[in-house]
């Protein structure tokens, strides 16, 4: 079994990034974290995560953003808000997870082969272009870009859904999609 080194040099920490994160909406309070672990205990998915939500907060507080942005945790978050409801310090952990997800995509450091980051991007692209999301094409694109073998596994149930009329290959387009794009652009700039 290979022995790996886990020593962390202080130069790897980026306090400025932590400061930047603190200014993001919903992220103001993470500095007050007690490290009590209530978030991890309350999270229904923490048992699948590489870092528990508490450890993600510890990482971002100390400025180890590379670990925080490249971990699976933020992509496993199902946005159920159980952590935020129970946090004794009122930290909006779900909002923090969203910010980390966006930052991970922007820096292109999200884990490869994980379908959720691909899904997030494809969903956004599709909605931005047409104003509607078409599940057939969304699933197809997600699978092609993350795990093409999934298509083989899903083929049977996909075919059944198609025949039952529960899945459609048709795409829809809203009128004046350019106005929607203007709104998206404004939201991006506001960031």
């Amino acid at each position, binding site marked *: 079994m290979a022995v790996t080194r886990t020593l962390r040099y202080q130069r790897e920490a980026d306090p400025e990034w932590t400061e930047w994160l603190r200014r993001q909406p919903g992220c103001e309070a993470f500095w007050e974290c007690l490290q*009590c*672990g209530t978030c991890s*205990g*309350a999270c229904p998915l923490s048992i699948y995560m590489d870092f528990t939500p*508490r450890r993600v907060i510890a990482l971002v507080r100390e400025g180890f953003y590379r670990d925080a942005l490249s971990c699976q945790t933020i992509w496993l978050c199902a946005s159920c808000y159980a952590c935020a409801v*129970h946090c004794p310090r009122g930290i909006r952990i779900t909002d923090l997870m969203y910010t980390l997800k966006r930052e991970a995509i922007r820096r292109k450091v999200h884990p490869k082969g994980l379908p959720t980051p691909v899904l997030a991007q494809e969903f956004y692209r599709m909605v931005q272009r047409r104003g509607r999301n078409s599940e057939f094409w969304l699933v197809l694109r997600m699978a092609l870009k993350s795990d093409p073998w999934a298509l083989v596994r899903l083929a049977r149930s996909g075919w059944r859904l198609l025949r039952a009329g529960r899945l459609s290959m048709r795409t829809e387009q809203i009128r004046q999609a350019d106005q929607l794009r203007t709104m998206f652009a404004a939201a991006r700039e506001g960031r």
Partner: protein
Amino acid sequence: MSERGQKLPSDVRVGVYVCHCGVNIAAVVDVRQVAQLARGLPGVVVARDYNYMCSDPGQELIRQDIRDYALNRIVVASCSPHLHEETFRHAAAAGGLNPYLVHMVNIREHVSWVHPDRERATEKACELVRAAVRRVVWHEPLEQARVSIHPDVLVVGGGIAGIHAALTLANAGKRVYLVERQPSIGGHMAMFDKTFPTLDCAACILTPKMSAVQAHPNITLWTLAEVTRVEGYVGNYEVEITRWPRYVREDLCSGCLKCIEACVYKDARFPDEFNLGLSKRKPIYLPFPQAVPQVPVIDPATCIQFKSGKCKKTCVEACGERGAIDLQAVPKVERVRVGSVILATGFQTFDPRRMPEYGYGIYPNVYTSLEVERLVNASGPTGGEIVLRDGRRPQSVGIIHCVGSRDRRHNPWCSRVCCMYSLKLAHLIRERTGAEVFNFYIDMRTPGKGFEEFYQRLLEEGVHFIRGRVAGVSDWALDPSEEGKLVLRVEDTLLGIVRRIPVDMVVLAVGLEPRSDAEELRRLFRVSCSAEGFFLERHPKLAPVSTFAEGVFVAGCCQGPKDIPDTVAQAGAAAAEALALIDRGSIEQEPNTAYVLADHCSACRTCVSLCPYSAISIVGGDGRPHAEINPALCKGCGTCVAACPSGSIRQHLFEDEQIVAEIEGILAGVAGG
């Protein structure tokens, strides 16, 4: 009062002193420039800046200048008058000047500590000094009034704090009235089995003190009593105490308890308050075996005679000739005069129903720590046996720390005692049942004599310490090993792993919070509360048992969460403060009181109802009625001065001329640019 002209008094000679306060002021405010500006102001004879005005040489500067320049007004620009007004008034008095001819300007808290910009801070300091110089011109010599201190003391609350304070005062020969709301004194401490970290028996160390209170010739003990009205002022409080009927006369009862035995209810069937409902009592009962006074009490809410009037009254029969049972008793009002008051009303524990994730009130085997205190107590509902509600002995117990504490949604403070009492309960549970005990903590706080050693002992005893706040308690088994158990879901933060731990019994280490009716007592005694609702001490470090109401002191958990040693120390301190006041015999009162210009007053009574200190009355009934203010009661709040429709109430040190001159001084700076 002399007639005041509108023009500037001619013979005014002002000295202005600007303090550097080391770098506290001088680093932000250009003190030289402030002094220089002062030199140019009308009436100013001398203006200086000095490193520390509060130091001896600084005060000497004022004394010397009063002599050399014949100064008759002083302005000191330094820190808050809360800190050094007294100092500079003394300095002026030592120089032969009336101390009320001194005025302070706060250029530290109001200027240098809050403004980063040097130029603008200096400008503000200059404006404040200009305003103060204009104001001080109108100051007049004032005399302090003296009020005598009545030597008797009222202690409110008969827990360990009240008991200790009362005994200390009584042993010093003072007369003490001890008022307790419950049927017995003893408070929360009487409910505990052992005390941390020495594990000495709470009853063994408390009950001798309780008996001493009962037996002490200088202590008048009133149980089932509440303070309902407070009037007066430091040294001369008049307090009205309502004594709710016990229905058993303390002066006749011998404590034989035959009445309880004879009650028509053969079995106890009403929840016992002292055991937190874990056992039952009869309508006539003794709260606990060592209760003081050792006199039963009848609860009219459950007694048949009070509910229907058709009881055989077997209790009265059993008492026989002694005739101690008095079912006709009515509330009695006592009026006492005391010089000082000690508030020792204690705390209440956090109600864990507010955190449904912990299942209190849902799962029967989730207990509060106070309930477990009763369970482990030999005089408790199970005689000291630790058994669950279904009679089983727990084989595994989880103790959750910080319930309701350190939590923004509930109580943000640390309750200080929970870590230690959780360790104590862990030890007692393990000792008596051999159960596996898990402590779930966020941070282990054991700062006290012998506390850390006790923690060490628990570690050695093999108690589990899991660093993590439990997210939830449920009876939902995911694994056969969890069937029939309560499962705690928690992140073991030191492992970084989420764990599920099945236990038979969950103990919630509930925090301490202010009593829900502390606000009413606060109003009665006109003390202040901090934002969280605990009584506020006058200064957190230097006046920890005094309050903003003079002559009223605080002790114990009504001031903030604390353990028994700290409570007793604080109760001793409160007693010492009260003794100091009594032994002085009298105190001087600030002359910043309001007064009425009788000729202008139309006796409209607006001020009478507004005065928060009931200091105003209408006098001169038949001739020319007008309001009059008792200077001993007046606190100088200024409410009546502002409210008087005819402007016929004025206030020393806040005369119209002084305030208008001060405002003009500030506006002159604004207008002049």
